[in-house]
């Protein structure tokens, strides 16, 4: 590559157009090199600083936090799921809020992260296991458990457990739901198609649409207490 560039620059230096072209190529080459470095290892101190930054919003030990928005629990979350969501934010396939006028905070957060950093963060968050934040209404936990374990009889709503696991632990790109914030789960299921178009999001779309508001609340309350 360098030799080709040299040839271009030396051979046609006098021809005005080629010089800027060479610079453009050089820029692309160096940008590519920068990106290649990013896929390498990240330092432990950089990961630690970034983890602290994530936890400003996602709560101590990433257990989730009720900010202006409900900010989801990342603790214990599946590594592949976190990777897929960050990709969704970066590609503008997953919106941050149902409101198009609001800044997509997670786009800004996600697009400066290298793949190696994403992997390191996701792995660290997966290893955490603080107790759930709690605070969900407890009147319909039994109804929530029935929906989670058995689905909704007479409708197309399947048991959540069949994909998310008996304890809501998730698997790969299927998220852990155990201990997730009640208002966050309610918001996601209510606004599904307005917010989510990342890879695999279409799996949940018909289910989210079929659930009634009270069913959503019941199942969200149930999963929020799972450990």
């Amino acid at each position: 590559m360098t030799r080709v560039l040299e040839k271009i620059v030396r051979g046609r230096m006098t021809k005005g157009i080629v010089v800027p072209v060479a610079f453009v190529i050089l820029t692309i080459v160096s940008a590519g090199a920068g990106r290649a470095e990013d896929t390498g290892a990240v330092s432990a101190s950089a990961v630690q600083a970034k983890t602290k930054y994530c936890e400003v919003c996602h709560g101590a030990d990433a257990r989730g936090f009720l900010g202006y928005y409900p900010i989801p629990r990342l603790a214990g979350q599946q590594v592949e799921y976190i990777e897929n969501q960050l990709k969704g934010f970066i590609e503008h396939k997953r919106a941050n809020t149902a409101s198009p006028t609001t800044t997509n905070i997670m786009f800004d957060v996600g697009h400066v992260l290298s793949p190696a950093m994403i992997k390191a963060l996701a792995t660290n968050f997966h290893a955490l296991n603080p107790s759930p934040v709690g605070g969900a209404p407890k009147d319909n936990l039994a109804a929530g458990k029935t929906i989670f374990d058995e689905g909704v009889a007479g409708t197309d709503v399947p048991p959540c457990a069949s994909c998310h696991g008996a304890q809501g632990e998730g698997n790969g790109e299927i998220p852990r739901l155990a201990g997730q914030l009640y208002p966050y789960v309610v918001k996601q299921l209510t606004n599904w198609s307005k917010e989510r178009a990342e890879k695999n999001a279409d799996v949940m779309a018909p289910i989210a649409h079929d659930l009634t508001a009270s069913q959503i609340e019941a199942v969200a309350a149930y999963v929020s207490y799972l450990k």
Partner: protein
Amino acid sequence: MKWRLMKFYGVGLASGLAILAAVCAGATYAAAAGTSGVAGKMQYCQDCHGISGQGYRGYVPIPRLAGQQPDYLMNQLRAFVEGRRPNSIMSNVAHVLSPAMMHALTRSFSRLDPPPLGGAPRRYVARGRAIFQDGDPGANVAACAACHGPDAHGHGEIPRLAGQLYPYIVKALTNWSQERGRIPSKPDTSAIMEPVAHSLTRPQVEAVAAYLSTLR
């Protein structure tokens, strides 16, 4: 005579309205706190915190309380009493307040909505807006809006920042760890802001404070 009468009615009407306002504001807690007591205490708070709780530049910048989240105000008053937030004046002010009075005052201030006091440098408002709404992810500065809301009106124990005094925000962010969460055995919400305050540079602090001070 006519003028005197008008003046008499005027004063009567004004104090009537003031009492009515205090009654509405304190409704639930009025019985416990005493309605006239709440109105008097509101007046006392506003001697320093400015007319309608707008904030005031005294010897130190005295924060705006108007429109503030009641849960935030409650937590701060308790922090002054417990020494989590060391401030000799506010510790003295707060420790004589009954819980009922605190409730009545915090709810009354949360309902006020005067315009911002203003007076901040306008030059970096746009830069401040960008930091507030998006943060500075490359430098690990979280987006303020995620917790304080895109309108900066706050939520629960997370304070409203809209219309807050420029020098007050600059001072709070600059001295965060010296002024907040000073009792390690009693960790509070202020711990969340610690890494954010530390990661902001001085120009970023000034820019975001200038932006917030203009918001309604």
